[in-house]
């Protein structure tokens, strides 16, 4: 298959399918920093970027052409806002993750707090960012039984992702620790602390 593949989404959006998450992040960065006239919303996900547009301002054909012509280079490591998240490790799943990964708990903490992460996309709840770039040794599945209530501020991992639960919610990810940072605040100009494209580091508090 050749990428990007551009698929119609109704009358006012296109779905751009890309080879991998790196290409998603590069295109998202390109489309949000160098805006195409007529686009109204850029929504990255795991392998796709949704480009919503106002059909009165730009046609689907012209927009698809403009997106194809972007072909952005991979993101440099320094692109995007940088955020440090202090974490109190010792979450309820730390021991289980250590066992799954065949590492000591200290080693799990060392590896998790040593990574350079980037927010790939958001979903599930306002301000819930899917962070990539973690240590592959910490790639563990979700819990078999999701929790009814995961406290807001929980730092968690599942599959290739790390996330911080922005508020109390149900959830099935493995909880490594907790941060006191406020992940979501509707009154802030940028309500989500962790938005797509941001770089994140976790620091043991």
């Amino acid at each position, binding site marked *: 298959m050749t990428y990007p593949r551009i698929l*119609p989404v109704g*009358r006012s959006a296109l*779905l751009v399918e890309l080879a991998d998450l790196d290409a998603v992040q590069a295109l998202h960065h390109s489309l949000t920093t160098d805006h195409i006239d007529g686009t109204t*919303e850029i*929504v990255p*996900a795991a392998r796709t970027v949704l480009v919503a547009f106002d059909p009165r301002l730009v046609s689907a054909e012209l927009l698809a052409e403009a997106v194809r012509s972007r072909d952005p280079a991979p993101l440099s490591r320094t692109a995007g806002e940088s955020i440090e998240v202090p974490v109190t490790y010792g979450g309820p799943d730390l021991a289980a993750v250590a066992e799954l990964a065949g590492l000591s708990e200290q080693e799990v903490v060392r590896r998790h707090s040593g990574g350079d992460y980037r927010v790939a996309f*958001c979903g*599930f709840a306002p*301000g819930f960012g899917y962070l990539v770039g973690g240590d592959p040794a910490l790639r563990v599945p979700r819990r078999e039984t999701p929790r009814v209530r995961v406290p807001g501020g929980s730092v968690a991992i599942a599959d290739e992702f790390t996330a911080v639960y922005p508020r109390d919610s149900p959830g099935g990810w493995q909880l490594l620790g907790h941060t006191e940072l406020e992940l979501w605040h509707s009154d802030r100009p940028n309500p989500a602390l962790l938005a797509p494209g941001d770089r994140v580091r976790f620091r043991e508090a």
Partner: protein
Amino acid sequence: MSKTGSAPAMVTVLASGSLATVQDLGRPGYAAIGVTRSGAADVPALRLANRLVGNAESLAAIEATFGGVVLRFHGATLMALTGAPVPADVDGRAIGMNGPVWVDSGAILRLGIPSSGLRSYIAIRGGIAVQEVLGSRATDLLSGLGPAPLSAGRELPVGPAPADWPSVTQAPVGGLAEVPILRLRPGPRDDWFEPDALQTLCGHAYEVTSESNRVGLRLAGPQLRHRVSRELPSEAMVRGAIQVPASGKPVLFHVDHPVTGGYPVIGVVEEADLAAAAQARPGSRVRFRCLPGLR
């Protein structure tokens, strides 16, 4: 804006029926940080209700689901009722739909049960003025953003009366179709389905099940079989998307839909037809009509 006339300070909710929420045109532009647009499920009905009391179309009104709302007005004002046709009275005197109605201070508005459709809108001159969240007063039932669903005893502030007055006393509004036809454009993932899936979807009536709400209409009818069995990595969803999980039972995403989803979308219903979908009661049926694809 200055107050003109005797603007009411508020209304009190005396009863909320099965579900009543505050809705406006929602909060577009935040999908990338996980916030769906939300807002009125029947957008033209909200806009009309606002116009009929002289409001800007974007002001907040009450979305009553299956009637049952009772309000007391504090201060004389103008109100209008649109959307699902519902018997209503003010202090026992019947009022009509789709026209401005003058109410006295202390008056009580009572909605019965709609004769057809599902969602009625009550606009009040000045608009419901609860606090905005991300530029909108809409209740998003999925994420919990915006004001809580209304309950008895809730006092709702009303904003300053606008300078404009409505120029009509009655708006012509057509009736609701018994089986609305929802036009859809194929894609983005129609190629994940058996070749006859779109034909199946557009060739049969689908029943709106009782699990339907502002998030989506869960539909019962012939199954739409996946041709591809691998998992779809999560991707952005839009209002109107018809997402089909492995069960083959389509879900039509509506105004409070999740911003991303992990099942393929076979087609997207035209935005203009989402109001008709919003008025489709559980137990009623809808039909889809395929528009030519854009590929």
